């Protein structure tokens, strides 16, 4: 622990020194490097402007907006059921999880609640999106660090999870399955058995990643002590999800807030890590994937019978009011502040997406690190461009 923080101090001092060198007459010639918007490591179109002294970063500044689609404006001209189609595309790897908080907010304003079976299926699909999302993160992590093989394992096994999502919703990437008052449809036949089989497979996948990547000495040398974000900084920047828990904050919205979902009925562990470095973030995510498979298994055991749709009017008018609902999405806290004026569509929707806050810490944490660590840190912070730009 102590020598890790010393290393962070050293890199900070080095950054200061690089700054100082730029200011004195004997300056070494710095170099401004644009990482992105077209770059293999930005998975999307994020651009990071880094000022380099040799290979050391003097300052770094992410530049967003290459994928800004103006969803907050678009929601104002859509009806409530139409908005789910938009929000599907925010974090496109865990699409279903984006729909849920918005639907919950609308339901809260309408003062209705989905039937228990719908809540459970929602939670199952939510956790399946989490598994699909984070398993790809774990594979992609290898590619960012130069190991190509884990990515293929990730794509291989994520395929099964996507098949499950497809079998329920008909869509692999953008299900658009959640409805105000419940779900579009019930589970298909054979879903429960197939899901159990896939969950076993995903646990094997996690073990494989644990062996091949997380446990690898080179991986640990690359990530331990790199990009340490202390607790108070993480909180101040509003980091959420695994990034926050990797900094030692025991905060998981699934456990710590009450929403009409089935998380209260299952038993799961919230993993935290005291180090706050890149390794901790990867490790917490790996444990979360394992935990999510267990959650799904438990939910399948206790799946209640009944309808999947509450009684809702055909044309949905949401009463005037304001509601905030956030859930623990794969990337972190995803929330919607919905303002309604009793209309067919929302008056204003503030979309609080996790990656926007998660990546806003980048200028702070990238200072003084080396170019390879820039990639490690960005990979471990785990952002999705649609989730930053919205």
């Amino acid at each position: 622990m102590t020598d890790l923080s010393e290393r962070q101090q050293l890199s900070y001092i080095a950054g200061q020194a690089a700054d100082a060198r730029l200011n004195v007459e004997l300056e070494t010639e710095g170099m401004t490097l644009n990482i992105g918007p077209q770059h293999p490591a930005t998975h999307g179109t994020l651009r990071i402007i880094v000022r380099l002294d040799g290979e050391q970063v003097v300052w770094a500044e992410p530049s967003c907006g290459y994928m800004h689609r103006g969803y907050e404006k678009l929601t104002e001209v859509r009806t409530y059921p139409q908005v789910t189609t938009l929000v599907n595309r925010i974090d496109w790897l865990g699409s279903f999880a984006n729909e849920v908080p918005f639907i919950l907010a609308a339901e809260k304003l309408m003062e209705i609640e989905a039937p228990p079976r719908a809540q459970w299926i929602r939670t199952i699909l939510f956790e399946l999106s989490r598994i699909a999302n984070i398993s790809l993160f774990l594979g992609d992590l290898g590619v960012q660090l130069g190991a190509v093989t884990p990515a293929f394992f990730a794509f291989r096994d994520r395929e099964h999870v996507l098949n499950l999502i497809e079998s329920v919703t008909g869509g692999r990437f953008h299900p658009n399955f959640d409805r105000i008052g419940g779900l579009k449809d019930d589970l298909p036949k054979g879903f429960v058995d197939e899901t159990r089989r896939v969950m076993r497979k995903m646990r094997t996948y996690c073990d494989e990643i644990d062996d091949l990547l997380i446990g690898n000495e080179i991986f640990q040398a690359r990530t331990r002590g790199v990009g340490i974000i202390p607790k108070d900084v993480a909180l101040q920047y509003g980091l959420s999800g695994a990034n926050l828990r990797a900094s030692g904050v025991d905060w998981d919205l699934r456990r710590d807030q009450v929403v009409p979902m089935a998380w209260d009925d299952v038993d799961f562990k919230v993993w935290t890590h005291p180090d706050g470095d890149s390794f901790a973030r990867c490790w917490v995510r790996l444990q979360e994937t394992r935990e999510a498979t267990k959650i799904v298994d438990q939910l399948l055991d206790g799946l209640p019978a009944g309808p999947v749709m509450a009684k809702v009017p055909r044309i949905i008018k949401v009463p005037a009011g304001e509601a905030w609902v956030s859930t623990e999405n794969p990337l972190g806290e995803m929330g919607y502040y919905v303002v309604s004026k009793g209309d067919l569509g929302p008056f204003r929707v503030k979309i609080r997406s996790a990656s926007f806050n998660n990546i806003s810490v980048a200028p702070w944490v990238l200072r003084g690190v080396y170019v390879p660590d820039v990639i490690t840190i960005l990979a471990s912070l785990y952002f999705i461009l649609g989730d930053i730009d919205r």
Partner: protein
Amino acid sequence: MSVAIEIPYWGQSLLRVLGGIVAVLLPAGTIVYVFLFKMMSFMQSRLGPMEAGPYGSMQLFAEVGKWMQKEDTAPAAADHRIFKMAPLIVLLSTFLLVAVVPFGPDAWLTNFETGVFYGLAVSSISVLGILVAGWSSANKYSLLGGLRAAGQLIAYELPLVLAAIGVVIQAGSMRMQDIVVAQNAGSIFGWDGVGNPYLLTQGVGFLVFMIAVQAELTQPPFDMPIAESELVSGYMTEYSGFRFLIFFIAEFATVGVFSLIASVLFLGGWGVPFAWFGWEGIDDVDNWMNVVGPLIMVNKMLVLSFLIMWVRFSFPRFREDQLQRFAWKVLIPVALANIVVTAILKVAV
């Protein structure tokens, strides 16, 4: 030496040139198809190319054809003459390198007195090619890649040389042919069942040599000069078409050639243990070894390049400073200790 068929000098020269080209391109093609396309695919639970030819065996030609068709572009700000020359310099070093590898008792390209010395010297010519490629591309990623390559290749040249010195001490010669003979005619403490492959008696040296080769070849976990996720493609970023193809061929041809050199230094080269056939020295070796020898070499080459590729597909990448620390603080001291122990044993035994 007893060559049954007398070949005129020009014929021998022609054969050697052709042999050199085959010795570079054949391993490159084999490694790309067998390891890069197929073995990597199976390790990653996919099939790899399947469309071109049976099991995708013609994929290599398709790839080459694709690259040949592509436009040969260069950045406007590039130093054009050097930019175009750089891949050739890299490939040149591979061709120069294969010249010292013996494939049989008479099937050699050149038979230098100082073969090991020459081989290790020309292998560093590729650094020049990479460095000028990085510099002349007028691209920041290329520049970073070129500089990283220079630092890395120079750092790992040293353990490479030091590991080879152990072999040279034990064989008592720098001639590659003599090293092969010394291994196959030798014995381990009087037991000559398998000769004396230096893999067994120079195990530490072999380990250091292979790690250094991995770094010299800029294969993962030592691929910082290319580092796809950091530097896009390092010094190769701006290259396209057949110039990229030349880099690509050079990369895998060098894998093959370094595997050949390693198999000469540590695995007994083209030879079989001489005791099996009752041969005393190189003059007794039968002529058929000129045909079987190259086959043996290819097999050893494939085994070693399999190891190189296996590591390549499995490990993440080191960071630049960790790589340097590993070279200077681990590999070089180990190699030096190996030399000292070898020398003491050589004198004592």
